[in-house]
Protein backbone atom coordinates (compact mmCIF):
# COMPACT_ATOMS: atom_id res chain seq x y z
CA UNK A 1 0.00 0.00 0.00
CA UNK A 2 2.88 2.34 0.74
CA UNK A 3 3.85 2.71 -2.87
CA UNK A 4 0.79 4.77 -3.68
CA UNK A 5 1.27 8.44 -3.99
CA UNK A 6 -1.00 11.40 -3.64
CA UNK A 7 -1.12 11.72 -7.42
CA UNK A 8 -2.38 8.19 -7.78
CA UNK A 9 -5.02 8.99 -5.22
CA UNK A 10 -6.09 12.00 -7.30
CA UNK A 11 -6.20 9.79 -10.38
CA UNK A 12 -8.57 7.40 -8.62
CA UNK A 13 -10.80 10.29 -7.63
CA UNK A 14 -10.98 11.38 -11.27
CA UNK A 15 -11.76 7.88 -12.48
CA UNK A 16 -14.26 7.35 -9.69
CA UNK A 17 -16.12 10.57 -10.40
CA UNK A 18 -16.33 9.70 -14.09
CA UNK A 19 -17.77 6.29 -13.39
CA UNK A 20 -19.95 7.70 -10.63
CA UNK A 21 -21.48 10.31 -12.95
CA UNK A 22 -22.65 7.56 -15.27
CA UNK A 23 -24.07 5.47 -12.42
CA UNK A 24 -25.81 8.53 -11.03
CA UNK A 25 -27.46 9.38 -14.35
CA UNK A 26 -28.86 5.88 -14.67
CA UNK A 27 -29.74 5.65 -10.98
CA UNK A 28 -32.05 8.66 -11.23
CA UNK A 29 -34.31 6.70 -13.55
CA UNK A 30 -34.66 3.91 -10.99
CA UNK A 31 -35.25 6.23 -8.12
CA UNK A 32 -37.83 8.46 -9.84
CA UNK A 33 -39.94 5.54 -10.98
CA UNK A 34 -39.72 3.97 -7.54
CA UNK A 35 -40.60 7.28 -5.92
CA UNK A 36 -43.81 7.55 -7.87
CA UNK A 37 -45.14 4.04 -8.35
CA UNK A 38 -43.04 2.05 -5.91
CA UNK A 39 -41.77 -0.27 -8.60
CA UNK A 40 -38.24 -1.26 -9.58
CA UNK A 41 -38.04 -0.88 -13.34
CA UNK A 42 -35.67 -3.74 -14.10
CA UNK A 43 -35.75 -2.86 -17.80
CA UNK A 44 -34.05 0.46 -17.11
CA UNK A 45 -30.56 -0.93 -17.77
CA UNK A 46 -31.74 -1.98 -21.23
CA UNK A 47 -33.10 1.50 -21.85
CA UNK A 48 -29.62 2.80 -21.12
CA UNK A 49 -28.14 0.24 -23.54
CA UNK A 50 -30.55 1.41 -26.24
CA UNK A 51 -29.50 4.99 -25.52
CA UNK A 52 -25.89 3.99 -26.12
CA UNK A 53 -26.76 2.27 -29.43
CA UNK A 54 -28.80 5.21 -30.66
CA UNK A 55 -25.97 7.52 -29.69
CA UNK A 56 -23.45 5.42 -31.55
CA UNK A 57 -25.62 5.34 -34.66
CA UNK A 58 -26.15 9.07 -34.48
CA UNK A 59 -22.43 9.76 -34.16
CA UNK A 60 -21.64 7.42 -37.05
CA UNK A 61 -24.36 9.03 -39.15
CA UNK A 62 -23.19 12.53 -38.37
CA UNK A 63 -19.61 11.71 -39.31
CA UNK A 64 -20.89 10.26 -42.60
CA UNK A 65 -22.47 13.62 -43.29
CA UNK A 66 -19.14 15.21 -42.59
CA UNK A 67 -20.07 16.95 -39.36
CA UNK A 68 -16.84 17.39 -37.46
CA UNK A 69 -17.56 20.01 -34.85
CA UNK A 70 -17.44 18.21 -31.53
CA UNK A 71 -20.04 20.49 -29.99
CA UNK A 72 -22.46 19.87 -32.86
CA UNK A 73 -21.92 16.11 -32.76
CA UNK A 74 -22.47 16.05 -29.01
CA UNK A 75 -25.60 18.19 -29.02
CA UNK A 76 -27.28 16.48 -31.97
CA UNK A 77 -26.38 13.03 -30.69
CA UNK A 78 -27.71 13.78 -27.24
CA UNK A 79 -30.91 15.21 -28.71
CA UNK A 80 -31.51 12.23 -30.97
CA UNK A 81 -30.70 9.69 -28.30
CA UNK A 82 -32.89 11.43 -25.73
CA UNK A 83 -35.82 11.57 -28.16
CA UNK A 84 -35.56 7.96 -29.31
CA UNK A 85 -34.75 6.49 -25.90
CA UNK A 86 -37.40 8.64 -24.26
CA UNK A 87 -39.98 7.17 -26.62
CA UNK A 88 -38.80 3.69 -25.67
CA UNK A 89 -39.27 4.61 -22.03
CA UNK A 90 -42.77 5.92 -22.73
CA UNK A 91 -43.73 2.87 -24.81
CA UNK A 92 -42.49 0.40 -22.24
CA UNK A 93 -44.50 2.11 -19.52
CA UNK A 94 -47.60 2.30 -21.70
CA UNK A 95 -47.51 -1.31 -22.88
CA UNK A 96 -45.91 -3.25 -20.07
CA UNK A 97 -46.65 -1.39 -16.84
CA UNK A 98 -49.74 0.76 -17.14
CA UNK A 99 -52.13 -2.14 -17.77
CA UNK A 100 -50.78 -3.70 -14.56
CA UNK A 101 -51.09 -0.59 -12.44
CA UNK A 102 -53.52 -2.05 -9.94
CA UNK A 103 -52.05 -5.53 -9.84
CA UNK A 104 -50.08 -6.90 -6.89
CA UNK A 105 -46.59 -5.41 -6.68
CA UNK A 106 -44.85 -8.52 -7.95
CA UNK A 107 -46.66 -8.50 -11.28
CA UNK A 108 -45.15 -5.36 -12.85
CA UNK A 109 -41.79 -6.50 -11.50
CA UNK A 110 -42.02 -9.71 -13.51
CA UNK A 111 -43.23 -7.70 -16.47
CA UNK A 112 -40.13 -5.51 -16.12
CA UNK A 113 -37.85 -8.54 -16.20
CA UNK A 114 -39.69 -9.67 -19.32
CA UNK A 115 -39.22 -6.29 -20.96
CA UNK A 116 -35.54 -6.42 -20.08
CA UNK A 117 -35.09 -9.83 -21.74
CA UNK A 118 -37.13 -8.71 -24.71
CA UNK A 119 -35.15 -5.53 -25.30
CA UNK A 120 -31.82 -7.30 -24.95
CA UNK A 121 -32.76 -9.86 -27.56
CA UNK A 122 -34.43 -7.33 -29.78
CA UNK A 123 -31.21 -5.34 -29.98
CA UNK A 124 -29.22 -8.53 -30.53
CA UNK A 125 -31.40 -9.42 -33.50
CA UNK A 126 -31.23 -5.94 -34.95
CA UNK A 127 -27.62 -5.10 -34.23
CA UNK A 128 -25.87 -8.41 -33.61
CA UNK A 129 -24.54 -9.73 -30.35
CA UNK A 130 -20.97 -8.64 -30.86
CA UNK A 131 -19.25 -5.48 -29.71
CA UNK A 132 -19.88 -2.53 -31.95
CA UNK A 133 -17.13 0.04 -31.86
CA UNK A 134 -16.79 3.52 -33.14
CA UNK A 135 -13.98 5.92 -33.68
CA UNK A 136 -13.43 8.24 -30.75
CA UNK A 137 -14.96 11.66 -31.15
CA UNK A 138 -12.99 13.38 -28.47
CA UNK A 139 -9.42 12.32 -27.70
CA UNK A 140 -6.60 13.70 -25.67
CA UNK A 141 -6.38 15.25 -22.25
CA UNK A 142 -4.16 16.86 -19.70
CA UNK A 143 -1.29 15.32 -17.79
CA UNK A 144 -0.08 16.57 -14.45
CA UNK A 145 2.87 15.46 -12.37
CA UNK A 146 6.59 14.78 -12.66
CA UNK A 147 7.92 13.73 -16.06
CA UNK A 148 9.69 10.67 -14.62
CA UNK A 149 7.04 9.52 -12.13
CA UNK A 150 3.30 8.87 -11.96
CA UNK A 151 1.28 11.36 -13.94
CA UNK A 152 -2.36 12.15 -13.36
CA UNK A 153 -4.26 11.86 -16.60
CA UNK A 154 -7.46 13.80 -17.04
CA UNK A 155 -8.96 13.19 -20.46
CA UNK A 156 -11.16 15.74 -22.20
CA UNK A 157 -13.81 13.05 -22.35
CA UNK A 158 -13.80 12.73 -18.55
CA UNK A 159 -14.28 16.46 -18.22
CA UNK A 160 -17.07 16.32 -20.78
CA UNK A 161 -18.81 13.53 -18.85
CA UNK A 162 -18.62 15.52 -15.65
CA UNK A 163 -19.87 18.72 -17.28
CA UNK A 164 -22.76 17.09 -19.15
CA UNK A 165 -23.79 15.12 -16.06
CA UNK A 166 -23.79 18.18 -13.83
CA UNK A 167 -25.72 20.17 -16.45
CA UNK A 168 -28.45 17.54 -16.78
CA UNK A 169 -28.73 17.04 -13.04
CA UNK A 170 -29.00 20.76 -12.47
CA UNK A 171 -31.67 20.89 -15.16
CA UNK A 172 -33.59 18.03 -13.59
CA UNK A 173 -33.34 19.54 -10.12
CA UNK A 174 -34.68 22.85 -11.40
CA UNK A 175 -37.45 21.13 -13.29
CA UNK A 176 -38.56 19.13 -10.27
CA UNK A 177 -38.35 21.99 -7.81
CA UNK A 178 -39.62 24.87 -9.93
CA UNK A 179 -41.94 23.78 -12.72
CA UNK A 180 -45.61 22.94 -12.53
CA UNK A 181 -45.07 19.43 -13.82
CA UNK A 182 -42.21 18.95 -11.41
CA UNK A 183 -44.53 19.99 -8.61
CA UNK A 184 -47.08 17.47 -9.82
CA UNK A 185 -44.34 14.81 -9.82
CA UNK A 186 -43.49 15.59 -6.21
CA UNK A 187 -47.14 15.53 -5.22
CA UNK A 188 -47.63 12.15 -6.90
CA UNK A 189 -44.61 10.68 -5.18
CA UNK A 190 -46.04 11.70 -1.81
CA UNK A 191 -49.65 10.68 -2.25
CA UNK A 192 -50.74 9.54 -5.67
CA UNK A 193 -54.39 9.03 -4.71
CA UNK A 194 -54.68 12.50 -3.26
CA UNK A 195 -52.93 14.06 -6.26
CA UNK A 196 -55.41 12.28 -8.47
CA UNK A 197 -58.31 13.54 -6.38
CA UNK A 198 -57.06 17.07 -6.83
CA UNK A 199 -57.38 16.64 -10.56
CA UNK A 200 -53.80 15.73 -11.51
CA UNK A 201 -53.64 13.26 -14.36
CA UNK A 202 -51.38 10.82 -12.55
CA UNK A 203 -51.00 8.51 -15.54
CA UNK A 204 -49.45 11.38 -17.41
CA UNK A 205 -47.10 12.18 -14.55
CA UNK A 206 -46.03 8.55 -14.37
CA UNK A 207 -45.38 8.50 -18.13
CA UNK A 208 -43.34 11.68 -17.76
CA UNK A 209 -41.27 10.05 -15.04
CA UNK A 210 -40.43 7.15 -17.31
CA UNK A 211 -39.52 9.50 -20.15
CA UNK A 212 -37.28 11.63 -17.91
CA UNK A 213 -35.55 8.55 -16.51
CA UNK A 214 -35.04 7.18 -20.01
CA UNK A 215 -33.70 10.53 -21.21
CA UNK A 216 -31.07 10.60 -18.48
CA UNK A 217 -30.18 6.96 -19.21
CA UNK A 218 -29.80 8.00 -22.86
CA UNK A 219 -27.36 10.72 -21.82
CA UNK A 220 -25.41 8.14 -19.82
CA UNK A 221 -25.46 5.75 -22.80
CA UNK A 222 -24.15 8.36 -25.21
CA UNK A 223 -21.39 9.39 -22.80
CA UNK A 224 -20.31 5.82 -22.12
CA UNK A 225 -20.35 5.03 -25.83
CA UNK A 226 -18.10 8.01 -26.48
CA UNK A 227 -15.86 7.19 -23.52
CA UNK A 228 -15.21 3.53 -24.18
CA UNK A 229 -16.01 3.52 -27.90
CA UNK A 230 -17.72 0.17 -27.50
CA UNK A 231 -21.25 -1.05 -27.01
CA UNK A 232 -22.92 -4.46 -27.03
CA UNK A 233 -26.42 -5.59 -26.18
CA UNK A 234 -25.34 -6.77 -22.72
CA UNK A 235 -23.94 -3.57 -21.24
CA UNK A 236 -27.33 -2.74 -19.79
CA UNK A 237 -27.37 -5.61 -17.34
CA UNK A 238 -24.35 -4.82 -15.20
CA UNK A 239 -24.73 -1.05 -15.56
CA UNK A 240 -28.38 -1.36 -14.55
CA UNK A 241 -27.46 -3.48 -11.56
CA UNK A 242 -24.81 -1.00 -10.45
CA UNK A 243 -27.08 1.98 -10.94
CA UNK A 244 -29.82 0.23 -9.00
CA UNK A 245 -27.30 -0.35 -6.23
CA UNK A 246 -26.39 3.33 -6.36
CA UNK A 247 -30.06 4.28 -6.08
CA UNK A 248 -30.57 2.02 -3.05
CA UNK A 249 -27.30 3.20 -1.51
CA UNK A 250 -28.41 6.82 -1.80
CA UNK A 251 -31.93 6.06 -0.60
CA UNK A 252 -34.35 4.82 -3.21
CA UNK A 253 -36.94 7.43 -4.09
CA UNK A 254 -34.58 10.33 -3.42
CA UNK A 255 -33.12 12.09 -6.46
CA UNK A 256 -30.20 13.73 -4.61
CA UNK A 257 -29.69 10.31 -3.05
CA UNK A 258 -29.31 8.69 -6.46
CA UNK A 259 -26.75 11.32 -7.43
CA UNK A 260 -24.78 10.82 -4.23
CA UNK A 261 -25.11 7.05 -4.37
CA UNK A 262 -23.74 6.98 -7.91
CA UNK A 263 -20.71 9.04 -7.01
CA UNK A 264 -20.00 7.04 -3.84
CA UNK A 265 -20.28 3.78 -5.73
CA UNK A 266 -18.05 5.04 -8.55
CA UNK A 267 -15.38 6.16 -6.10
CA UNK A 268 -15.56 2.89 -4.16
CA UNK A 269 -15.07 0.86 -7.32
CA UNK A 270 -12.27 3.03 -8.52
CA UNK A 271 -10.39 2.80 -5.24
CA UNK A 272 -10.99 -0.92 -4.98
CA UNK A 273 -9.55 -1.49 -8.44
CA UNK A 274 -6.49 0.58 -7.62
CA UNK A 275 -5.70 -0.42 -4.06
CA UNK A 276 -6.90 -4.00 -4.03
CA UNK A 277 -7.35 -5.72 -7.34
CA UNK A 278 -9.58 -4.91 -10.26
CA UNK A 279 -11.50 -8.13 -9.65
CA UNK A 280 -12.51 -6.88 -6.22
CA UNK A 281 -14.29 -3.77 -7.39
CA UNK A 282 -17.71 -5.39 -7.53
CA UNK A 283 -17.12 -7.10 -4.19
CA UNK A 284 -16.33 -3.76 -2.61
CA UNK A 285 -19.27 -2.05 -4.31
CA UNK A 286 -21.81 -4.55 -3.06
CA UNK A 287 -20.17 -4.93 0.35
CA UNK A 288 -20.53 -1.18 0.70
CA UNK A 289 -24.20 -1.48 -0.17
CA UNK A 290 -24.71 -4.12 2.51
CA UNK A 291 -22.84 -2.05 5.08
CA UNK A 292 -24.83 1.09 4.39
CA UNK A 293 -28.11 -0.76 4.46
CA UNK A 294 -27.21 -2.42 7.76
CA UNK A 295 -26.54 0.93 9.35
CA UNK A 296 -29.07 3.06 7.46
CA UNK A 297 -31.80 0.87 5.98
CA UNK A 298 -33.28 3.84 4.13
CA UNK A 299 -29.99 4.61 2.37
CA UNK A 300 -27.78 7.68 2.70
CA UNK A 301 -30.43 10.32 1.96
CA UNK A 302 -33.62 8.27 2.09
CA UNK A 303 -36.51 9.17 4.29
CA UNK A 304 -38.23 6.46 6.26
CA UNK A 305 -41.28 5.14 4.51
CA UNK A 306 -44.20 7.45 5.13
CA UNK A 307 -47.25 5.66 6.41
CA UNK A 308 -49.78 5.36 3.62
CA UNK A 309 -53.44 5.06 4.41
Amino acid at each position, binding site marked *: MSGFSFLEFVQQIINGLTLGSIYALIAIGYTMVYGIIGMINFAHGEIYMIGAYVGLMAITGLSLFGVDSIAAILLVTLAISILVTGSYGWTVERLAYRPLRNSPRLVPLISAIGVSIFLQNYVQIGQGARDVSMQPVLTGGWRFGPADGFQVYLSYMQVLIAVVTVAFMAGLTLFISRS*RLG*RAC*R*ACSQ*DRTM*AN*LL*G*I*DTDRVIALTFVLGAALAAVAGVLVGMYYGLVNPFIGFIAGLKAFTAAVLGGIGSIPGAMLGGVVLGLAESFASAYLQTEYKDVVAFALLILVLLMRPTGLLGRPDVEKV
Partner: protein
Amino acid sequence: MTLPASAPTPAAGAGRSLLDVQNLSMRFGGLLAVDNVTFEVRRGQIFAIIGPNGAGKTTVFNCVGGFYRPTTGAVTLDGQPIQHLPSHRIARLGLVRTFQNVRLFKTMTVVENLLISQHAQLEARLLPGLFKTPKYRRAETAALERAAFWLEKVGLLAVANREAGNLAYGQQRRLEIARCMITHPKLLMLDEPAAGLNPQETRDLDRLINELRAEHGVSVLLIEHDMSLVMGISDEILVVEYGRPIATGDPAAIRANPKVIKAYLGEE
Protein backbone atom coordinates in the same frame (compact mmCIF):
# COMPACT_ATOMS: atom_id res chain seq x y z
CA MET B 1 -82.41 28.25 5.82
CA THR B 2 -83.69 25.26 7.75
CA LEU B 3 -85.52 22.82 5.60
CA PRO B 4 -88.19 20.28 6.49
CA ALA B 5 -87.00 16.74 6.95
CA SER B 6 -86.19 15.10 3.62
CA ALA B 7 -88.90 17.08 1.89
CA PRO B 8 -89.59 15.40 -1.42
CA THR B 9 -89.91 18.37 -3.74
CA PRO B 10 -89.18 16.90 -7.17
CA ALA B 11 -90.58 19.86 -9.11
CA ALA B 12 -88.94 22.70 -7.24
CA GLY B 13 -85.89 20.65 -6.30
CA ALA B 14 -84.73 20.19 -9.89
CA GLY B 15 -82.96 23.50 -9.89
CA ARG B 16 -82.11 23.70 -6.24
CA SER B 17 -80.83 20.26 -5.50
CA LEU B 18 -77.06 19.99 -5.75
CA LEU B 19 -76.27 16.48 -4.65
CA ASP B 20 -78.88 13.79 -4.91
CA VAL B 21 -78.19 10.38 -3.43
CA GLN B 22 -80.83 7.76 -4.12
CA ASN B 23 -81.06 4.31 -2.52
CA LEU B 24 -77.33 4.03 -2.07
CA SER B 25 -76.05 0.66 -0.86
CA MET B 26 -72.54 -0.62 -0.52
CA ARG B 27 -71.75 -4.24 0.19
CA PHE B 28 -68.32 -5.58 1.12
CA GLY B 29 -68.61 -9.33 0.84
CA GLY B 30 -71.10 -10.31 3.52
CA LEU B 31 -71.18 -6.89 5.15
CA LEU B 32 -73.79 -4.42 4.05
CA ALA B 33 -71.92 -1.27 5.10
CA VAL B 34 -74.44 1.14 3.65
CA ASP B 35 -78.04 0.06 3.36
CA ASN B 36 -80.39 2.04 1.18
CA VAL B 37 -79.40 5.58 2.09
CA THR B 38 -81.21 8.44 0.38
CA PHE B 39 -80.58 12.14 0.92
CA GLU B 40 -80.34 15.38 -0.89
CA VAL B 41 -78.03 18.34 -0.37
CA ARG B 42 -79.39 21.62 -1.64
CA ARG B 43 -77.45 24.60 -2.86
CA GLY B 44 -76.08 26.63 -0.01
CA GLN B 45 -76.98 23.99 2.54
CA ILE B 46 -74.78 22.63 5.28
CA PHE B 47 -75.71 19.00 5.60
CA ALA B 48 -74.29 16.69 8.26
CA ILE B 49 -74.17 12.92 8.46
CA ILE B 50 -73.83 11.63 12.00
CA GLY B 51 -73.91 8.23 13.60
CA PRO B 52 -71.95 5.96 15.93
CA ASN B 53 -68.52 4.70 14.95
CA GLY B 54 -68.70 2.14 12.17
CA ALA B 55 -72.13 3.30 11.08
CA GLY B 56 -70.98 3.67 7.50
CA LYS B 57 -70.65 7.43 7.25
CA THR B 58 -67.27 7.43 5.61
CA THR B 59 -68.41 4.69 3.26
CA VAL B 60 -71.20 6.98 2.10
CA PHE B 61 -68.55 9.66 1.50
CA ASN B 62 -66.38 7.26 -0.42
CA CYS B 63 -69.29 6.22 -2.63
CA VAL B 64 -70.28 9.81 -3.31
CA GLY B 65 -66.72 10.91 -4.03
CA GLY B 66 -66.01 8.06 -6.44
CA PHE B 67 -63.62 6.18 -4.16
CA TYR B 68 -65.92 3.19 -4.06
CA ARG B 69 -68.32 2.07 -6.71
CA PRO B 70 -71.66 1.73 -4.92
CA THR B 71 -73.28 -1.70 -5.15
CA THR B 72 -76.61 -0.09 -5.97
CA GLY B 73 -78.01 3.39 -6.05
CA ALA B 74 -77.57 6.61 -7.94
CA VAL B 75 -75.54 9.70 -7.14
CA THR B 76 -76.26 12.89 -9.05
CA LEU B 77 -74.26 16.09 -8.82
CA ASP B 78 -75.97 19.11 -10.30
CA GLY B 79 -78.16 16.89 -12.46
CA GLN B 80 -75.30 14.76 -13.73
CA PRO B 81 -74.98 11.11 -12.68
CA ILE B 82 -71.55 10.61 -11.14
CA GLN B 83 -71.64 7.19 -9.54
CA HIS B 84 -69.63 5.68 -12.39
CA LEU B 85 -67.03 8.43 -12.73
CA PRO B 86 -63.47 8.13 -11.40
CA SER B 87 -62.70 10.39 -8.46
CA HIS B 88 -60.56 12.91 -10.33
CA ARG B 89 -63.39 13.51 -12.82
CA ILE B 90 -65.80 14.02 -9.94
CA ALA B 91 -63.34 16.46 -8.41
CA ARG B 92 -63.25 18.42 -11.63
CA LEU B 93 -67.05 18.60 -11.61
CA GLY B 94 -66.86 20.52 -8.36
CA LEU B 95 -67.07 17.94 -5.60
CA VAL B 96 -63.99 17.93 -3.39
CA ARG B 97 -63.31 16.37 -0.03
CA THR B 98 -61.02 16.16 2.95
CA PHE B 99 -60.16 12.99 4.81
CA GLN B 100 -60.44 11.91 8.43
CA ASN B 101 -56.68 11.76 8.63
CA VAL B 102 -55.06 14.86 7.17
CA ARG B 103 -53.72 14.14 3.72
CA LEU B 104 -51.52 17.06 2.84
CA PHE B 105 -48.35 16.82 0.79
CA LYS B 106 -46.29 16.98 3.94
CA THR B 107 -42.84 17.66 2.56
CA MET B 108 -44.04 20.37 0.22
CA THR B 109 -44.53 23.93 1.38
CA VAL B 110 -47.91 25.30 2.40
CA VAL B 111 -48.18 27.43 -0.73
CA GLU B 112 -47.11 24.54 -2.96
CA ASN B 113 -49.98 22.51 -1.56
CA LEU B 114 -52.34 25.17 -2.82
CA LEU B 115 -50.62 25.38 -6.20
CA ILE B 116 -50.92 21.63 -6.64
CA SER B 117 -54.66 21.70 -6.30
CA GLN B 118 -54.85 24.30 -9.06
CA HIS B 119 -52.87 22.00 -11.33
CA ALA B 120 -55.93 20.89 -13.27
CA GLN B 121 -56.76 24.48 -14.10
CA LEU B 122 -53.22 25.43 -15.02
CA GLU B 123 -51.71 24.52 -18.30
CA ALA B 124 -48.97 22.05 -17.52
CA ARG B 125 -47.27 21.34 -20.77
CA LEU B 126 -43.58 20.57 -20.76
CA LEU B 127 -42.21 23.17 -23.16
CA PRO B 128 -43.92 26.34 -21.86
CA GLY B 129 -42.73 25.22 -18.44
CA LEU B 130 -39.15 24.78 -19.59
CA PHE B 131 -39.01 28.12 -21.35
CA LYS B 132 -41.22 29.99 -18.90
CA THR B 133 -43.28 31.74 -21.53
CA PRO B 134 -45.05 34.98 -20.51
CA LYS B 135 -48.36 33.15 -20.53
CA TYR B 136 -46.97 30.51 -18.19
CA ARG B 137 -45.62 33.19 -15.86
CA ARG B 138 -48.91 35.08 -15.83
CA ALA B 139 -50.87 31.95 -14.99
CA GLU B 140 -48.36 31.08 -12.27
CA THR B 141 -48.66 34.56 -10.78
CA ALA B 142 -52.45 34.34 -10.80
CA ALA B 143 -52.25 30.94 -9.11
CA LEU B 144 -49.98 32.39 -6.45
CA GLU B 145 -52.38 35.26 -5.88
CA ARG B 146 -55.28 32.87 -5.40
CA ALA B 147 -53.12 30.85 -3.01
CA ALA B 148 -52.31 34.01 -1.04
CA PHE B 149 -56.00 34.91 -0.89
CA TRP B 150 -56.90 31.56 0.60
CA LEU B 151 -53.95 31.51 2.98
CA GLU B 152 -55.09 34.87 4.28
CA LYS B 153 -58.63 33.53 4.60
CA VAL B 154 -57.61 30.55 6.73
CA GLY B 155 -54.95 32.50 8.61
CA LEU B 156 -51.90 30.72 7.24
CA LEU B 157 -50.26 33.47 5.21
CA ALA B 158 -47.46 33.84 7.76
CA VAL B 159 -46.45 30.20 7.36
CA ALA B 160 -46.80 30.05 3.57
CA ASN B 161 -43.28 28.82 2.97
CA ARG B 162 -43.10 26.26 5.75
CA GLU B 163 -43.33 22.57 5.05
CA ALA B 164 -46.96 21.53 5.46
CA GLY B 165 -45.98 18.60 7.68
CA ASN B 166 -44.50 20.99 10.23
CA LEU B 167 -47.71 22.92 10.85
CA ALA B 168 -49.76 22.48 13.97
CA TYR B 169 -52.62 20.04 13.54
CA GLY B 170 -55.35 22.67 13.47
CA GLN B 171 -53.41 24.60 10.85
CA GLN B 172 -53.09 21.47 8.72
CA ARG B 173 -56.85 21.02 8.88
CA ARG B 174 -57.41 24.59 7.73
CA LEU B 175 -54.87 24.18 4.95
CA GLU B 176 -56.77 21.13 3.73
CA ILE B 177 -59.96 23.15 3.54
CA ALA B 178 -58.16 25.95 1.69
CA ARG B 179 -56.75 23.39 -0.71
CA CYS B 180 -60.29 22.26 -1.51
CA MET B 181 -61.77 25.74 -1.71
CA ILE B 182 -59.18 27.08 -4.12
CA THR B 183 -60.69 24.89 -6.83
CA HIS B 184 -64.08 26.69 -6.52
CA PRO B 185 -66.01 23.57 -5.61
CA LYS B 186 -69.79 23.40 -5.64
CA LEU B 187 -69.82 20.92 -2.81
CA LEU B 188 -67.23 20.64 -0.07
CA MET B 189 -67.22 17.31 1.75
CA LEU B 190 -65.52 17.34 5.13
CA ASP B 191 -64.83 14.05 6.88
CA GLU B 192 -64.61 14.81 10.60
CA PRO B 193 -63.10 18.27 10.22
CA ALA B 194 -63.11 18.91 13.97
CA ALA B 195 -61.38 15.67 14.93
CA GLY B 196 -58.36 16.47 17.08
CA LEU B 197 -59.15 20.16 17.36
CA ASN B 198 -59.38 21.96 20.69
CA PRO B 199 -62.62 23.88 21.55
CA GLN B 200 -61.22 27.19 20.36
CA GLU B 201 -60.12 25.69 17.05
CA THR B 202 -63.51 24.05 16.67
CA ARG B 203 -65.21 27.42 17.09
CA ASP B 204 -62.86 28.90 14.46
CA LEU B 205 -63.76 26.06 12.16
CA ASP B 206 -67.45 26.67 12.69
CA ARG B 207 -66.98 30.32 11.72
CA LEU B 208 -64.83 29.41 8.73
CA ILE B 209 -67.39 26.98 7.32
CA ASN B 210 -70.16 29.56 7.69
CA GLU B 211 -67.99 32.15 5.97
CA LEU B 212 -67.25 29.82 3.11
CA ARG B 213 -70.93 29.34 2.50
CA ALA B 214 -71.83 32.99 2.87
CA GLU B 215 -69.00 34.40 0.79
CA HIS B 216 -68.30 31.68 -1.71
CA GLY B 217 -71.64 29.99 -2.07
CA VAL B 218 -70.29 26.54 -1.39
CA SER B 219 -72.52 23.81 -0.07
CA VAL B 220 -71.09 21.59 2.63
CA LEU B 221 -71.59 17.92 3.40
CA LEU B 222 -69.89 16.88 6.58
CA ILE B 223 -69.38 13.93 8.83
CA GLU B 224 -68.74 14.90 12.39
CA HIS B 225 -68.69 13.52 15.90
CA ASP B 226 -68.44 16.87 17.66
CA MET B 227 -72.08 17.53 18.52
CA SER B 228 -71.49 21.18 19.45
CA LEU B 229 -70.25 21.79 15.93
CA VAL B 230 -72.87 19.69 14.16
CA MET B 231 -75.85 21.05 16.03
CA GLY B 232 -74.71 24.65 15.68
CA ILE B 233 -73.81 24.61 12.03
CA SER B 234 -76.06 22.18 10.19
CA ASP B 235 -79.23 23.00 8.30
CA GLU B 236 -80.10 19.35 8.03
CA ILE B 237 -78.79 16.19 9.62
CA LEU B 238 -78.95 12.58 8.51
CA VAL B 239 -78.43 9.96 11.22
CA VAL B 240 -77.20 6.52 10.23
CA GLU B 241 -76.78 3.43 12.35
CA TYR B 242 -75.46 0.09 11.10
CA GLY B 243 -75.48 1.52 7.59
CA ARG B 244 -79.20 2.34 7.71
CA PRO B 245 -80.65 5.84 7.81
CA ILE B 246 -82.71 6.23 10.98
CA ALA B 247 -83.65 9.90 10.88
CA THR B 248 -83.36 13.08 8.87
CA GLY B 249 -84.23 16.57 9.96
CA ASP B 250 -83.04 19.89 11.33
CA PRO B 251 -80.93 19.92 14.51
CA ALA B 252 -83.89 20.54 16.81
CA ALA B 253 -85.86 17.64 15.34
CA ILE B 254 -82.84 15.35 15.52
CA ARG B 255 -82.20 16.30 19.14
CA ALA B 256 -85.77 15.45 20.02
CA ASN B 257 -86.00 12.24 18.00
CA PRO B 258 -86.24 9.29 20.45
CA LYS B 259 -84.70 6.85 17.98
CA VAL B 260 -81.66 9.07 17.63
CA ILE B 261 -81.34 9.58 21.35
CA LYS B 262 -81.48 5.86 21.86
CA ALA B 263 -79.07 4.99 19.10
CA TYR B 264 -76.59 7.71 19.44
CA LEU B 265 -76.96 10.67 21.68
CA GLY B 266 -78.13 8.49 24.55
CA GLU B 267 -74.86 6.68 24.55
CA GLU B 268 -72.73 9.81 24.85
